[in-house]
Structures are given as structure tokens and as C-alpha cells.
């Protein structure tokens, strides 16, 4: 790295806020995916003005720059694919304003997702998007990736909850998008920027909507003797017009991994469970829970359990949200995929995933947002064994191709990042990609901001990207 740039960064931020030694950079080679890319340095701004200056310096030195929250992302979005400076928002983690009366909060990007809900809990409100990694992931990261989570089935994903942002463009210009009041005139720039995976700007402030906590919640655990019955249940719940707050599925392999770790009370001998939340008014929840239970029984659920109290409910959800951590205990390395399909295609897709696993010699686990048709196949592999990583990637690609074939998309919530840019042509033709490129170039004309993400560099799908060998486990999703 240019020593002059390093010197300037240290002068700006202080020596302790700039990491550049190889041993310090190791951690920042990774996120939650199987991607690896090493930055030249990592900087820790404390305020927006620091971010502006960092961007200006990077510009002057024509060095790539990549924003990073907690590094829990699953598509390599926060990795420095072309090297350069990682801007960690770890120190910009203050909740700037809680406006409970207007159900809004303004936060710095480094605020941890669940910390915001904790901070506003006394007002009866919460921040609805709840990725499984919500105890670690940051709201800045959520905004970049347009993150989802189990309860986005009823409450929507991050973009549905963001009203305004302050961002630093790659030129160093500081602008505000959207407004805390609704319906700002002109184009929906906030909607465009959320989910742009850090390729348009670095976000320095976010105003989000807060959602009132429901009066009543009921959690059902439906236990099945066949995966197919579980997926057919989900199809019918959707078709009957029941909208649970969350509808998650875990297959037998995942259940056993989770149970050994969390002891959530999941039965060890079944091939599939559904974990379903219904919420709302007391008068409504009772009827909804009964309707859901009826559908489960109709599709041969062996047992439908209703969590007796908040403690049992929390334990069941702990099982779900720690599933990825649990998998890490039995397979130190695994590849978590993220595909999305029309919900009616769930049974066929799960059958196909199982076939693909057999073809490549993997036992693929599934823990996913069934109600949204958002799959997360987990492919455990051993990177020390010949071709295992390549085979895991090949299996994952086949799964994603199948998702697209049945009318789905290549990513539901993890983002395209550097993992799936080469798969974008499965969904979009050159005209679509060309327009997306031109839109990116409006904000990021020199391509210094998060280069090598989302859009394939070369035309067509021909580029073969070979991942570096990972040598550590994936953190939780």
C-alpha cells in the first residue's frame, strides 16, 4: 500500500484507528461467506467527517474503498475484492435519536440490529427486520444488503423500513436522501440506494421506521415425518391467505445439529419441522393459530405444539436463529446458499436439492424462510479434501439455476456481492445489466467504491471465477 496514503490515514484518524499489518488484516479477509479477499488496510472512522476525508484520500490515491459493518454478510459484500481500504463502521455505533411518538429512529451505520430494538423496547416499539445474525450484524450492513429475516414475511425487509439516509458519495460529497416525513418529491432515491451493496455510497446515518410490538404472539412447532408434508403445509398456508408473522423450516439434519447445541426441544427423529409465529390482537391470534394448526394436521403433521410461554417461545427461536452456529460444530466449513423461489415450488425444489446433494456427495441441510420461499441450503464440505470446495460451489450453482428455472431469483436476502455477480446473467440480459452499470456509474464513476461486486465485469457468463481456499468456518448467518 502507498505509504503516503497510510500516513495520511493515520494523521486523520490516529494510529490506533488504522490497521495495516498482515496479522491485523487476517480477520478482514472474511465475512460469513466462503469468499476471501485481503484489504490493504482497515480504518475506523468515528464520525461522518472522518468518512468524508477517508473517501477524499482514497480518491486522491485512486484506491478502492469498501464499507463494512460486522462482517456477517454472506456474499462477500464487505470484502475488498480488489484490495484497498476497508472502512469499518464499528466506532460509528450510536443511536442518534429515538422519536417514539413518530415511530422513527436515526442511527449511525454501526449500530447492531438488535441493539436498536433493545434501545426502544421501553416504548413498545422495535426495528422489524431481524436477520438471524441480528445480535451481531449492523443496520448499515442491513441497509447495504437490504437484509431480511424470519419475520420479514409479515413485516417486510429492510427497504420497507428505511425513510432517509445520509451518505458519502465516492467523490466525498455528503448528501441526504429521502426524508423522515413521507413522500419526498422526486424519485425514490432511498429505495434505489437500499440494497445497492455499498456500490453507490458509504452510508453514515439512517432514519428507520419503528414498528409497534404485537399485543399477542403464538409460536407453533409442527413436527413432520416427511419433508414433503412440511413444504406442502407451507404452500397451503400461503394459498389459504393466512399470513403468519414468520414461517421457518428446518430439516432433520439441521434439527439434529441445532438440538445438540441449543437443546431447543426439537425432536431428533423427524425429517422436518416448521416453526410458525402468528401475532396481532389477542382476539386474532387465537383464531390464526388454530387455522395454522389445522393446515399442519391436514398435511399429516405428527404433532403440533404450541409454545406455552415466552420462555418456551424464545427457546424455539433460539434454536432457529443459532442454526448456522450449530452447523459449525459438526462441519467446520460449510457453504450457505441463498435462493428464492415461488412458494408453490418448495416441494419440488427441496427434492431437487436433495438430488443435487447426492450427485456431488454432500448431505445438504436446509434451514430457511419457508413462508417467503427463501431457501438456505447448507452444503458442508472439507476444504482439505480434493475438489470439495469446487464441488460445493458447483452444487450451489445447480441449486440456484434450478431456482431461476422455476421462476425464482439468485438471492433473496444475502446479496449478490462477489459470490454471485457471475450468476447475474441467469436473470438479467445485457440491456438490464448495462442499465444497472450506468446507474452505478452515476454515483461511482471511477469504480473505486466496492469494486467487483453485483455486476459481472465481463460480458456474459463465461468468466470462471476460482475462489481462494478458505481455511476457517463460516460464522453464523
Amino acid at each position, binding site marked *: 500500500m502507498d505509504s503516503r496514503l497510510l500516513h495520511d490515514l493515520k494523521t486523520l484518524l490516529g494510529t490506533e484507528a488504522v490497521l495495516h499489518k498482515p496479522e491485523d488484516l487476517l480477520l478482514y479477509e472474511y465475512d460469513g461467506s466462503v469468499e476471501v479477499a485481503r484489504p490493504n488496510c482497515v480504518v475506523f472512522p468515528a464520525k461522518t467527517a472522518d468518512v468524508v476525508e477517508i473517501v477524499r484520500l482514497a480518491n486522491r490515491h485512486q484506491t478502492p474503498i469498501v464499507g463494512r459493518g460486522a462482517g456477517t454478510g454472506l456474499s462477500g459484500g464487505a470484502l475488498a475484492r480488489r484490495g484497498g481500504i476497508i472502512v469499518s463502521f464499528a466506532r460509528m455505533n450510536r443511536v442518534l435519536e429515538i422519536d417514539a411518538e413518530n415511530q*422513527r429512529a436515526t442511527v449511525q451505520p454501526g449500530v447492531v440490529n438488535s441493539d436498536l430494538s433493545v434501545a426502544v423496547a421501553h416504548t413498545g416499539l422495535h426495528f422489524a427486520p431481524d436477520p438471524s445474525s441480528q445480535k451481531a450484524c449492523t443496520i448499515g450492513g442491513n441497509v447495504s444488503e437490504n437484509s431480511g429475516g424470519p419475520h420479514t414475511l409479515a413485516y417486510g425487509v429492510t427497504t420497507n423500513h428505511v425513510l432517509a439516509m445520509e451518505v458519502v458519495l465516492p467523490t466525498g460529497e455528503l448528501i441526504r436522501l429521502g426524508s*423522515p416525513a413521507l413522500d419526498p*418529491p422526486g424519485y425514490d432515491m432511498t429505495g434505489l440506494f437500499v*440494497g445497492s451493496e455499498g456500490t453507490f455510497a458509504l452510508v453514515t446515518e439512517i432514519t428507520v421506521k419503528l414498528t409497534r410490538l404485537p399485543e399477542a404472539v403464538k409460536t407453533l412447532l409442527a413436527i413432520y415425518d416427511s419433508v414433503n408434508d412440511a413444504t406442502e403445509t407451507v404452500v397451503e398456508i400461503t394459498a389459504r391467505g393466512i399470513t403468519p408473522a414468520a414461517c421457518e423450516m428446518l430439516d432433520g439434519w439441521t434439527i439434529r445439529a441445532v438440538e445438540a447445541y441449543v437443546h431447543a426441544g426439537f425432536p431428533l427423529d423427524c425429517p422436518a419441522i416448521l416453526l410458525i409465529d402468528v401475532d396481532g390482537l*389477542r382476539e386474532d391470534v387465537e383464531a390464526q393459530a388454530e387455522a395454522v394448526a389445522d393446515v399442519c394436521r391436514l398435511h399429516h403433521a405428527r404433532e403440533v405444539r404450541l409454545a406455552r410461554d415466552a420462555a418456551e417461545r424464545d427457546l424455539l427461536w433460539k434454536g432457529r436463529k443459532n442454526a448456522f452456529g450449530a452447523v459449525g460444530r459438526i462441519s467446520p466449513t460449510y457453504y450457505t446458499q441463498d435462493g428464492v423461489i*415461488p412458494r408453490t415450488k418448495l416441494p419440488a425444489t427441496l427434492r431437487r436439492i436433495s438430488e443435487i446433494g447426492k450427485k456431488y456427495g454432500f448431505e445438504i441441510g436446509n434451514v430457511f*424462510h419457508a413462508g417467503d420461499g427463501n431457501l438456505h441450503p447448507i452444503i458442508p464440505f472439507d476444504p482439505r479434501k480434493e475438489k470439495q470446495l469446487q464441488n460445493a460451489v458447483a452444487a450451489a450453482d445447480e441449486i440456484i439455476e434450478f431456482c431461476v428455472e422455476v421462476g425464482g*431469483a439468485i438471492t433473496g436476502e444475502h446479496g449478490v456481492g462477489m459470490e454471485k455477480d457471475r450468476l*447475474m446473467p441467469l436473470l438479467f440480459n445485457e440491456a438490464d445489466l448495462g442499465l444497472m452499470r450506468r446507474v452505478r456509474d452515476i454515483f461511482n464513476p471511477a469504480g473505486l467504491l466496492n469494486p467487483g461486486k453485483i455486476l459481472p465485469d465481463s460480458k456474459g457468463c463465461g468468466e470462471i471465477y476460482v475462489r481462494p481456499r478458505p481455511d476457517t468456518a463460516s460464522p453464523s448467518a
Partner: protein
Amino acid sequence: MSMLVTDISKHVAGIVGPSFVIGDPADLAAYKIEGKVPGAAARPATSTQVAELVKFAAAEKLAIVPMGARTKLGMIPSLNRYDLAIDMTRLDRVVAYDPDDLTLGVEPGVPLGRIAGVLAAHKQFLPLAVPFLNRATVGGTIASGVDSPLRQFFGTARDYVLGMEFVTGDGTLAKSGGRVVKNVSGYDLHKLMIGSMGSLGVITQINFRTFPSLAATCVFIAAVDSAARAIELRHRVVQSPLRPLTMDILSPRAAELLSSSVAARTDPNPIPANVFAPSHWSFVVSYAGTENVLARYERDLRQMAGGTSIALCEGSAASAALGRLREFTAIALESSAAATIVKMSALPTRLKELLNDASRIAEKMDVPWAAVARGVGVICCALLPGDRGEETRQRVQRTVAQLIEACDRLSGNAAILACPAEWKGSLPAPAAQRGDFEQMQKVKKVFDPDGNLAPALVSKRT
């Protein structure tokens, strides 16, 4: 435009077929915007034809405006040029409807009424309870970004549009998003198209998430003596566990309009007498659910409203009341030849101040007015002068300027939804927020490099 009008028609006929070109000046009057009549109107039937039309227009530097049922042309920002109308009503196919997946793909020219019928057969609906519902097309509704009282519960189109296909200003057919309920593949370009008034592209397909039909719906209307009291009720509901479908506050004049014979022309469903009390402010809430849920809402709402006079509508009366509420903008436009409608927003806690400001400003300027304030913090303020005279125009102009200032002062937003065509150029245009104006201009330049589509939406803040 250097091309002769007859030549435009001839070329356009080559693309869409001679039967689908309108060149006769008498017929073209139907496509008039702000008194300007285009050289021709084309009625394409496919997205390929739309792309060819736009390419032709780009090559000949013709200014084009896409449109559906033409119910909201008055919302288009002031046009300098207008050579070719693209009438999208022949792109009227339901491309894909998967009821069990709750997803729908439609061409833009499908009337909302037809979509409602298709979805109702599967007990589903789209929460687009927008003005001109019985005439409007889905494309015009989305492109104009008009809101619906149902946004209280369902949000706006940006919350349930899953993807789009559109033709940009250079004639490129492009798409973003998809037809699955959760998707982060690529940039959400379709969000830009919502409310862009055709200035970024011509929409050729829209994919939606659909919703299960509502259970039995009730409308609860409390007649209260002040805006302040109505807003206090709004705050109480928001702080309660209730999650109503709609929540609106009507000024006395708005209540009167919704009960008027003009309203009956817009939405013919009969409404029981005295539902909207013209001498009072009205607090209007709707909700749906099982018998127990409805009883809970009624009990809690009655308790909150205390001793005020309550009207409760169920069944067809509820549909009629919501129909009137939905059509407020259309009713206001019908009721005055010079109706000028300003949409204003503010944080909910500042709604009271903004409503007070609006009432004070309109009354000081002696302009009759009516307002519907949505609980989410958006006010539709209709100025209803009796004539289009010059003196009236000046008064309305000053009123609009002051309303925009009031929004600015309260960190809110403003937009002019409608006004007499000949006034458009002289009314102050609302400006973009702080820094994003330049970025919006750049977006416009990428989507419409030669500026052949309708003009950009915003002006620079001065």
C-alpha cells in the same frame, strides 16, 4: 421536432399498424395535456412496439408522454414539448397470475377494475384503493404514485411491487426485480419508476405481490369538534395495539364533499345519510377481521373517542364510505373548475400544526379548501376556488407558495397533484430535498439521455 405531423403518423403506423395511430386533430383532443395537442397518438400492443416507438421518437427527437386511461395527466409537470402520445391501453394482458404464490404480473394498460375481478375470483386483492379506481389503469396508477388510504396498513406501491419491465428513453427494453416476494438480485430500478410520471421510462410490465382478501370490514367515524381532537385520536390509536387498515382525518368541507352529489357521480355506491358530518371534523378508521376482532376494535375505538358522535358502517355501507374516501381527489377535482390539490407531508406529531397552517393560510387568502389527512402523516389539501380568473390564480398561487413554505418549516414535503392546466407554469413547483436533486438529474440523464420522455419531476431548491 423537425418532422411533419403527417410523417410522424406514417412512421408510427409502420410500427403499430395504421388502425392504431390517431392523427386526426379532433380525436387527438382526448390526448391534450395543458392545452397542448400531440402530433399523433400511438396505441402499441406489445413491449417490442413500445420500444420501437421510443427508438423512433429518440431518433427524431420527438417528445413523448406515455399514458393509460388519462385520468391523471394533470399531475405531469409542466411540458415544454409534446409530440407523441403513447396510449398504453392495448397492453392490457394479465401476463401471469399465480394465486397460490400470491404474485401477479400485468401489462400497464390493464384497468384496476379488471385486476380486482381477476384477483377476487381467488379471494385476493391489491391494496391500490386509488382515485379514479373505476377508470384508471394499473400503469398510470403506479407511474403517478398516487396513494391509497390503505397505505396505513399495507404501505405504498414500493412495498408490494416486486419487479418491472420498462423501456428507457433510448428505446432499450430493460427490467429489474422479479416475481418472487423476496429478492435482492441487482439494483431496485423499478422503485425509481414508481411515481416517476413516465419521465424515466415507459412501463411495459409490473409484478406485484397480492394479498388475501380482507375479512368483514367496518368503518368507524367519529365526528369531533376540532382537528386537534381528531389528531389526538390518531395518536391514541397508533399507541394502542390496534392496526387499522385506514386512518384518516377529514376537514368539515371534505366531509361535506364526500357526502355531496358530486361524490355520488364519482362513486355511485349509496352511502347512508349523515355518515360524514359536514359540520365537524371526522376521524375515520377502518378495520377488518373476525367477529371478535371487529368487536374489539369497536370497543377500543369507542372508549378512545369518549362521548363523541359515532357512525359505524358495515358491509356495503363500509365499502361505500371507503369508496368516497378513496375518491377524495377525484371528487375535489369535480367540485371546482379551478381545483388545485397540494399533497403535504410532515411527521405525525406535526400534523396538527400543518393542518392548522393549511387552514389559516387558505382562510387568510380567502380560498375555499378541504383536506384529508392520513394518519401516516400525509395531507391531501384541495383548494377549491370558484373560478379561473386572473385574480383567483394569483391568490391560489400565493396560497400554494405559503403551503409549501409551511411544509418546509415543519421539515415536511409538498407536491402539487393537480391544478388547472393553464396555471401549471405559474404555480411554484416543490423542490427536492437538500442534496439529492443533482443525483436525480443524473438518474434522469441515464434513463432518458436526450430528454424525450416527460420532464423530470423536481426542481432545484432555491
